[in-house]
C-alpha cells in the first residue's frame, strides 16, 4: 500500500474513532434507509416469486359442450396434447367432476346427488409451459381452442390482470417512495458528515495551506462514508433477518398458510444490492458534504 493511501486510511479510522457519536448517527440513518429499501426488495422479491409459482400452476379449464360425443372429446384431448406449449392434458369426465365437487364441498353432497352425475360438464385441464402460461400468451392460446367443442374456457384472466396491475403500482410506489427516502437520507447523512467536517475544519484548512489536493482532503471522508455505509447495511441486513423470522413465525401461527412457509429471505444478489446501496449512500453524502466545505476554503 502506498504511503499516501496509508495516511488516508489512518486519518479515516482516526476520525471514525474521534467522532464516534456523529459517525454512529450517520450509520444509523443509512441503516434505517437501507432497511426500508431491503423491506421493499423483500416484498417485491417474494411477490415476484409468488407470481412465478402461480404462473407455473396456471392451467386452462376448457369445458366441453354437452353435445360433443365422448370419442370426439378424446380426439380433441390428443390433438391438444401434441401442441408444443402444452405440458399435460387431463380429461375430467362429468362424473369425476361431480365426485371432486362432493369431496370438496360436503355440504352440497345431497344437492349434487339429486341433480345427477352428469350435472357438471366434462372438461380438459390443460397445463402449459412457463412461457405459454404468461398472461398474453395464455390468452392467445385460449383463443385457439375451438368454440364448437368448448362452451367455456377459464384461466382466471381477470384476476391475473388485476394482480399484474397491483404489481406495477407497487413498483411505481416503491420507486417514488424510495426516491423520496433516498433524497431525505442523503440530506441527513450529508449534514451529519458536515458536522464531522466542521469538527475538523481547522485541520482541513491547514492541510490545504500545506499543499493538500482536494482529492487528498476528501479521500478519508469517502472512506468514512464507505465504512458507515457498510456498517449501516450490515445493521439493516440484521434488522431485515429479524423481521423476516418474526413475520414467518407470526404468519404461520396466525394462518398456517402454506404461502408463509415460502416467504423467503433475500437472495445473495439482492443482499449485494443492499450493501451497494448503503455504501453508495454513505460515499455520495460524504462527497457532497466535503465538496460543500471545500468550496468555501481558499
Amino acid at each position, binding site marked *: 500500500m502506498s*504511503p499516501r493511501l*496509508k495516511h488516508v486510511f489512518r486519518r479515516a479510522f482516526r476520525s471514525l474513532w474521534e467522532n464516534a457519536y456523529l459517525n454512529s448517527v450517520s450509520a444509523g440513518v443509512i441503516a434505517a434507509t437501507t432497511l426500508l429499501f431491503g423491506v421493499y426488495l423483500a416484498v417485491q422479491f417474494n411477490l415476484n416469486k409468488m407470481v412465478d409459482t402461480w404462473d407455473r400452476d396456471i392451467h386452462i379449464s376448457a369445458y366441453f359442450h354437452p353435445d360433443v360425443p365422448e370419442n370426439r372429446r378424446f380426439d380433441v384431448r390428443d390433438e391438444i396434447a401434441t401442441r408444443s406449449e402444452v405440458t399435460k392434458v387431463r380429461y375430467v369426465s362429468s362424473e369425476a367432476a361431480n365426485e371432486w365437487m362432493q369431496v370438496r364441498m360436503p355440504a352440497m353432497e345431497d344437492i349434487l346427488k339429486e341433480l345427477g352425475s352428469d350435472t357438471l360438464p366434462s372438461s380438459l385441464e390443460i397445463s402449459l409451459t412457463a412461457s405459454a402460461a404468461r398472461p398474453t400468451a395464455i390468452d392467445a392460446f385460449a383463443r385457439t381452442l375451438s368454440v364448437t367443442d368448448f362452451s367455456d374456457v377459464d384461466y382466471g384472466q381477470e384476476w391475473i390482470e388485476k394482480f399484474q396491475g397491483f404489481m406495477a403500482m407497487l413498483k411505481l410506489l416503491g420507486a417514488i417512495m424510495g426516491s423520496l427516502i433516498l433524497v431525505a437520507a442523503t440530506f441527513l447523512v450529508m449534514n451529519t458528515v458536515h458536522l464531522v467536517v466542521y469538527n475538523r475544519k*481547522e485541520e482541513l484548512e491547514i492541510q490545504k*495551506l500545506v499543499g493538500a*489536493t482536494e482529492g487528498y482532503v476528501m479521500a478519508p471522508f469517502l472512506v468514512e462514508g464507505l465504512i458507515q455505509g457498510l456498517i449501516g447495511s450490515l445493521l439493516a441486513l440484521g434488522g431485515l433477518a429479524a423481521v423476516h423470522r418474526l413475520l414467518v413465525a407470526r404468519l404461520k401461527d396466525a394462518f398456517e398458510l402454506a404461502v408463509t412457509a415460502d416467504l423467503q429471505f433475500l437472495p445473495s444478489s439482492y443482499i449485494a444490492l443492499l450493501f451497494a446501496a448503503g455504501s453508495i449512500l454513505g460515499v455520495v453524502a460524504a462527497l457532497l458534504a466535503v465538496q460543500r466545505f471545500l468550496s468555501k476554503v481558499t
Partner: protein
Amino acid sequence: MIRAYHVTKRYGDVHALRDVTVKLGKGEFCYVTGPSGAGKTTMLKMLYGAVQPTEGKLLVGGVDVSRLSKRRLPYLRRNIGIVFQDFKLIPTRTLAENVGLALEVLGTSRDVIDRRVNAVLGIVGLRGRGHEYPPTLSGGEQQRVAVARAIVNDPSILLADEPTGNLDGAMAIEVMEILQAINLRGTTVMVATHDTGLMNRFPFRKLRFEAGRLVES
C-alpha cells in the same frame, strides 16, 4: 523568485493593493511592512494563492499565480512554507503530527516523515518534544512548531504573516533568529510585520505599503 508586475487587488470598490511592481531574488530576506490595512496580508495571501490579483501579473517561483487554476494551487503551496500570527496548529495532534502534516500530503513514507520531523524540531529548538501537544507549549514554542511545519518539506519560499505578533520580546527574537537561520540556508523569506524594533534588530530589505501602494522597496 518573486516578481509582481503592476499588481492590483480590489474587493468591490476598495483597493487592497494598487499597481504594485516588485522583484525579490532567490535567498533574499525582506519585510513587508506598513500600518494596519496597508495591504501586507493581501500581498502575502496573493503569493500563496489564497486570493488572485484583479489586475497585473504575479510570478512565484516561475509560476504565474494570477492565472493559476484551483487544481494547480496545491502544487504551488508545496513549494511555499507559511507561518501565521495565530500559529494555526491542531491542538488535538502532537507536535510531530502537526509538523509531519506537510509531508503527509506529499505522500511521504512514515519513516522519512519521522526523520524529517525530528530534524526540523531540532532546528527550532524542540528536539525530543514531538510527543507533546500544542496547548501545553508557550506562544513562542508554538510559533517555533509552526515554523518547523513550514520548513519541513524544504520549501524555496517562506512567508510569515506577523509571526511575532502574539509573542513577547524574547520569544519574538527567538523566532526571528530561526527565520534568519532558515534564510541563511538559501530559503527566500518574506515577513509581514509592523514591529520596527524587530526590523531594526534584524535589518533586511523593507517593502513598505501605505493604503495599498508600495511606497518603499
